[in-house]
């Protein structure tokens, strides 16, 4: 159980900067998800926390102790790798045992921990199987068991679910979170899947190009994205982003006009599909478009529109809504839920006019 602090941590490979000066505090017992597209530096950061990579500059503290130069094993971390990597030539039992091989715990304690972990993850029937003889889900559970027997100070997971099929991921997600909460161990979970991030994380750290974009609870990340990048990366269906200009208290893009209170200049308007509605094609101050596709999600449907420039826009509608591809329509954002992003990609800290 540990509180982890990264202070001005930096990682370079030659001229390539993998992680730019990063400050990050991970609270004891929390489930932190590091989210970002591949190459954003999230795995490098994880590796530095694990001790697999050493930072080029900066320090890492576990519970206030400087562990920057401490080896992975000595940091007492546990890690689950991509595709739930296990030693392929060892049985599940020996794989789990190998976690405790280099500890000086008494044999009885080792046995106790193993039994406990195996019970917790329901691995009893496959203890003597080789990883290649098991399904992906079973392997994931075995890798988790291998990780928890160490009773680590922190639990690091590097896209453990990415190779699994959708249904399995769904069930394993809750299983993992449930386990982490029961154990109370700090966990850092790396993923590029925003749904995973939203559903699992106590907090989410969004990274992009080696920089930390935003860190916060899923609600904060979703509802108050700090930047255009975060806004675009999170949410399903994704947020509509419309480039335009602010002038005379209004955001304008083509025919579209939304009243805002902000300094004039180029900006991007963001509106989530549930905060937009379809309007008559002739109505003023809306964005004219044609229906491109209609996706039924059951509880609701998504209309995908295409504007004149070929940009796709999404609007949530009642499941009973009908439209034909090619129908003319217009998008009308709800001004009270619109967000504005400046030219630098950061969200403009301004209120929007609460007008009807």
């Amino acid at each position, binding site marked *: 159980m540990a509180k982890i602090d990264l202070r001005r941590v930096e990682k370079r*490979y*030659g001229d390539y900067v993998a992680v730019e000066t990063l400050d990050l505090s991970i609270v004891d017992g929390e489930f932190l998800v590091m989210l970002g597209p591949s190459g954003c530096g999230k795995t490098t950061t994880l590796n530095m926390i694990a001790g697999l990579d050493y930072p080029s500059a900066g320090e890492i503290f576990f519970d206030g102790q400087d562990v920057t130069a401490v080896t992975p094993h000595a940091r007492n971390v546990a890690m689950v790798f991509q595709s739930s990597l296990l030693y392929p030539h060892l049985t599940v039992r020996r794989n789990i045992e190998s976690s405790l091989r280099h500890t000086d715990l008494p044999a009885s304690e080792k046995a106790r921990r193993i039994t406990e972990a195996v019970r917790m993850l329901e691995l009893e029937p496959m203890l003597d199987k080789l990883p290649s003889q098991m399904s992906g889900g079973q392997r994931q559970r075995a890798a988790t068991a291998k990780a928890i027997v160490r009773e680590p100070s922190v639990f690091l997971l590097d896209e453990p679910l990415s190779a699994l099929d959708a249904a399995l991921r769904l069930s394993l997600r809750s299983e993992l979170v449930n386990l982490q909460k029961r154990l109370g161990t700090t966990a850092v979970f790396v993923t590029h899947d925003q749904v995973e991030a939203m559903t699992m994380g106590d907090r989410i750290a969004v990274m992009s190009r080696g920089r930390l974009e935003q860190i916060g609870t899923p609600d904060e990340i979703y509802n108050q994205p700090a930047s255009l990048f975060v806004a675009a990366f999170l949410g399903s269906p994704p947020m509509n982003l419309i480039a335009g200009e602010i002038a005379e208290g209004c955001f304008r893009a083509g025919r579209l006009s939304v009243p805002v209170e902000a300094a004039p200049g180029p900006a991007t308007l963001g509106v989530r599909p549930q905060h937009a509605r379809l309007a008559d094609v002739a109505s003023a101050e809306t964005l004219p478009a044609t229906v491109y596709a209609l996706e039924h999600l059951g509880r609701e449907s998504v209309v995908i529109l295409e504007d004149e420039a070929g940009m796709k826009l999404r609007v949530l509608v009642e499941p009973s809504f009908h439209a034909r591809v090619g129908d003319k329509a217009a998008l009308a954002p709800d001004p009270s839920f619109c967000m504005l992003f400046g030219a630098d990609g950061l969200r403009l800290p301004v209120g929007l006019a609460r007008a009807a």
Partner: protein
Amino acid sequence: MASEPGLVRPAAPLDRQARTRRTRELSDGHFALLIGLPVIAFLIAVVGYPLIYSIWMSLHKIVFFGGYRATFAGLDNYASVLHDEQFWWSTWVTIRFTIESVLLTMVLGLLIALLLNRRLMLGGLIRTLIFLPWCVSLYGAGLMFAYLARSQTGLGTAILGLLGIDATTDFLSGSSIIEVLAIGNAWTMAPLVAMFILANLKTIPTRLYDLAAIDRLSAFETFRYVTLPPIRFSLFVFTSITTVLSMKLFDFIFVLSGGGPGTASATLTYQVYKRSFKELNLGLGSAMSFYLLFLIIGSTLLLFLLWGRKEKPL
């Protein structure tokens, strides 16, 4: 994400504190040095020394009779090799032998691998028997093929005799000796190639074959679109390897034909052996052996440029 370079090349200005705290773990480079250095040193001693000695010899005129003398001769030996008709003949023999050997080996290796990839009755036994040729030494194989191909003692004559035909099959003649050698060489090398291709084939998911069946691909199309792609790189690698092995082959030829009849099968290796060892013309022999080395390296480079560049390792 998979291929972040592992080597820590501390190019960036390191935080001094961090440097002093550097961990006790060995870096990749240090570990490689620790493991590799003794081995590389050994290889340099036992491969590098003879190589340099060879270069030295190739630049000297060495005489044994009336007292050992070595006089510097510059590139004379290299020049005289180029004027040696035997050298050009042997180069041609080597190339012909290599091309035939490699083609035959690759085709056979592929066939064997495809066959063994199927479920066979008595699979273990059949695999053992098919791998057996590779275990036979090259001199042993040389003797086998000598007795097998010779009209006096060979299978051809025996079969003709059994059919009551009084004739002989003279395969060890100037016109076909290289083919006999290539067949024998392929016989010993094909199992090795097959083994590695087979290991490759085993990684192709059966699903793909089911898919091919659903798509009603013909046997040839299945081979071309399902089987071939994952083994292409191996095919390239083994084409290179068998090229090298064929070009440097000596004992098999020495035992089977002794370079004959006449000089019909005198490959470059045989020519080098003859010049250096039998005639003690060490300078000329060494110079010739370097031409051989260039030929070997040149052929593999050519293969790489024409083919290997386009292939991706799995």
